């Protein structure tokens, strides 16, 4: 696997980070004596590769000291293929000076607004070239280019720090595409609005505490999906593999096909296929050589599918992996990871949704996120909110938070906006595994409404 990354950022009128990195190496995963072993090296000489393969086998034999039964894998067919993710404009071909000029224009627009004390903007590019070969005879060559872009305005006043991000927190929007994403985002054009909101938050009312209807913007809903649907459906968590670190899942096996996860309008799919869009979870084959699939997760509110691997599929009697095994880089084993876990759109616009809400809060852009280690109890905060009274936005609210229990929350969903309001967001920073791995995942969502949710709890004395 050969990875190239470029990261360019500016802060308060100056370049902050201008750097790039390359990393080339090989990981070997084996089953020997019925147990797993893995070794990775950046020594790609014949001797280095031989030594690493032998080390992987030696490690697998050590694993066999603590095994119950031999590893068993769901069958797969041999694949020889090549896939290159669509990329109209290679971000690495765009001159660094052009990129920095853009970021500095955004920076200037942000700082033009009085009260902005810190302006930060970023462009983040990643190119990976990967050859997967297996003893099954598969040879799969995949090339992916990812682009990320965004900015943050921060304002300190009195005893308060307020922050607004665009188009999302965690560095902005990320997709598996080229520099064309940057033009789509209109960073310079959006900067004044976001900067003004940042400063206005100091004068805004505190989000009230109580039980209210809430409407979540699509980016915040993307993270809600990630934490309260995406992670619970990872079958390795369900089976206990992550018990010591990332945790387990409330979605125990008897709930498959039985649990009413959400209301009847909630439909969720884990879709890695290019047809779903240029998400961070889009590929042609996973890192076990399994073709990308669209796996129904929730149908009409009913829980119907896990994310699986070849090994865990066998453990629950399913004939085939759902193709969700992904490794961060050449020096990490593949783990079950989210692909693009997306909420299907409903109908109508955000304006119509607000107009049909009597007493609620509209919340946008994540500020904090936390959920228990079985994914029941969550609490999120957003950067900004607006009070809704009688179907109208009445005032700006600062420090919005909401909390709930996963299944109760999804069962309270009574409206989802239509396809025109649906965005495939990229979450570039999903952590899992030991040693830790960071993975990009995709989450399509349109704004949605949830009835009678606890809000403002984080600030309640």
């Amino acid at each position, binding site marked *: 696997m050969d990875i190239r990354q470029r990261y360019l950022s500016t802060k308060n009128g100056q370049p902050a980070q*201008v*750097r*790039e990195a390359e990393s080339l190496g090989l990981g070997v995963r084996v089953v020997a004596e019925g147990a797993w072993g893995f070794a990775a090296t*950046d020594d790609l000489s014949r001797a280095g590769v031989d030594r690493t393969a032998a080390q992987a086998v030696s*490690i697998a034999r050590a694993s066999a000291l603590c095994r119950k039964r031999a590893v068993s894998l769901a069958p797969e067919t041999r694949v020889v293929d090549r896939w290159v993710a669509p990329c109209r404009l290679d971000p690495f071909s765009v001159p660094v000076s052009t990129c920095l000029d853009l970021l500095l224009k955004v920076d200037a627009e942000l700082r033009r607004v009085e009260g902005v004390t810190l302006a*930060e903007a970023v462009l983040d590019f990643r190119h990976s070239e990967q050859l997967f070969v297996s003893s099954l005879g598969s040879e799969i060559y995949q090339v992916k280019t990812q682009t990320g872009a965004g900015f943050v305005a921060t304002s300190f006043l009195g005893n308060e720090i307020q922050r607004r991000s665009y188009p999302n927190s965690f560095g902005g929007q990320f997709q598996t595409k080229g520099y064309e994403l940057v033009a789509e985002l209109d960073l310079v054009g959006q900067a004044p609005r976001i900067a003004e909101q940042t400063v206005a938050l100091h004068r805004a009312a505190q989000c009230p505490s109580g039980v209210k209807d809430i409407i979540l913007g699509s980016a915040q809903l993307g993270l809600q999906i990630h934490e309260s649907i995406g992670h619970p459906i990872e079958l390795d968590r369900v089976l206990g593999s992550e018990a010591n670190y990332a945790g387990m899942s409330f979605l125990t096996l008897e709930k498959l096909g039985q649990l009413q996860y959400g209301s009847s309008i909630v439909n969720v799919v884990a879709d890695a296929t290019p047809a779903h869009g240029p998400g961070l979870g889009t590929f042609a084959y996973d890192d076990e050589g399994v073709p990308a699939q669209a796996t129904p997760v929730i149908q009409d509110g009913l829980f119907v599918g896990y994310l699986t691997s070849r090994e865990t599929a066998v453990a629950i009697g399913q004939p085939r992996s759902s193709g969700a095994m992904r490794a961060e880089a050449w020096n990490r084993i593949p783990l079950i990871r989210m692909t693009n876990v997306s909420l299907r759109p409903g109908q109508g616009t955000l304006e119509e949704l607000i107009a049909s809400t009597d007493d609620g809060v509209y919340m946008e852009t994540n500020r904090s996120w936390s959920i228990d280690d079985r994914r029941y109890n969550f609490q999120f905060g957003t950067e900004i909110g607006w009070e809704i009274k009688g179907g109208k936005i009445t005032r700006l609210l600062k420090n919005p938070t909401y909390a709930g229990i996963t299944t109760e929350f999804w069962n309270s969903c009574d409206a989802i906006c239509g396809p025109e309001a649906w965005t495939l967001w990229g979450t570039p920073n999903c952590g899992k595994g*030991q040693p830790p791995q960071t993975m990009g995942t995709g989450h399509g969502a349109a704004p949605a409404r949830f009835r009678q949710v606890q809000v403002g709890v*984080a*600030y309640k004395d």
Partner: protein
Amino acid sequence: MILTRQHAEEIFAQLLKYSTADETEAIITSTAYALTRFANNIIHQNVAEEGGSLSVRVVVDRRMARASTNKFDEASIRHTCEAALALARHQPPDPELLPMPGPQTFRGVRRFHQETAQLTPQARAETVRRVITRARKDGLTAAGVFSSGCFAMGLFNSRGLGAFHEETVSEFSVTMLGESSSGWAKKTSPNCRELQPEVLADRAARKARGSREPREIAPGKYTVILEPAAVLDLLGYLFSDFGGLAIHEKRSCLTGRVGQQVFGANINVRDDVYHPRQSGAPFDGEGMPRQRVALIEQGVVKGVVYARQTAHKTGAEPTGHGLPLPNEIGEAPLNIVMEGGKTSVQEMVRSTERGLLVTRLWYIREVDPYQKILTGMTRDGTFRIEDGKLQHGVKNLRFNQSMIEMLGQVEMMSPPERAAGEETFDMVVPAMQVRDFSFSSLTKF
């Protein structure tokens, strides 16, 4: 093969042949690391990696950039140098950029243990097998990791600065799972002999047994006893604010609070890489010697840490806490040592009329950056205390708690120890008894 200082110097000499920059810096690293992971009473993941990196920073006409590679052959060194130069030339100059530092003198720290560097997968598996046997004896299921490895880092620049550090790392952590409860314990050390995996397994098993069939309690304010792992995972979200640049840019909760009595008078914290229970290199990301810095004295924000660049910008002296340049953050204290008290956790329990004992916290996130309100969950062993005794396990709770308020409500502390959690870097911290710790809801297990 782990990097030697001589090899690192040879790589830097090669780099200098190709660099046409005004100034050139290289950070050269090498790692050999292995981790054995177990769950469901079997080893299910078992990995090893080796590798290195050459990270080149150049300055051309006050323009700075960095490029990195993991290949040390001559062509890769040349290519990486050229990549850094190309990045640097395509940006506007930074009039405030300082020249790189010259030669420095470092206090040695010995943190390399041959036995840890050479620990085999077979030895780790044998230890895991004993822990699994221990779990089965109690009808429990064990999950955890046993890792070991070594790394070396050399930092050199064209002004003659040279720094080199090598260190070993090891970690054992274990979760014991019962039908309705779990317990957890973890330890890290540069020396694998200090881990005592079976002691940790016993502790985790006791917590799992003791918290069986946990009961619901009402959310609200409780006196809590936070074990050291819980303390450090909370504090990790506070000390990133003790950077000079964070305060200068008004993104720190200490903006306007330096020199003030912010915390309780019993709170004393310093950053001290030389503490015998600490780990890490005695130099920072620019090669400056790390200094001991008093951060909190008797509750007063006494000092913050400074990279060279921040110190220059703010009229302070650098403390050797800078991150590799270029970066947005500036600096951070990474070797926290908090003074403690003399009260053991058992004595704290005996002195608590009504409260909770918290083993570990999970998924902590910042809710408010200036009030420093954090939220998160308890995990793997939360107990009700009544009349000075542990009564029973309780279902896990969500907290929303200001760190500034919490460090004004500390009633008792244990002697400090090296603690490890999952949310932040290792620290030397005590267990604490804290009054009026605020829980907002509970979960279903």
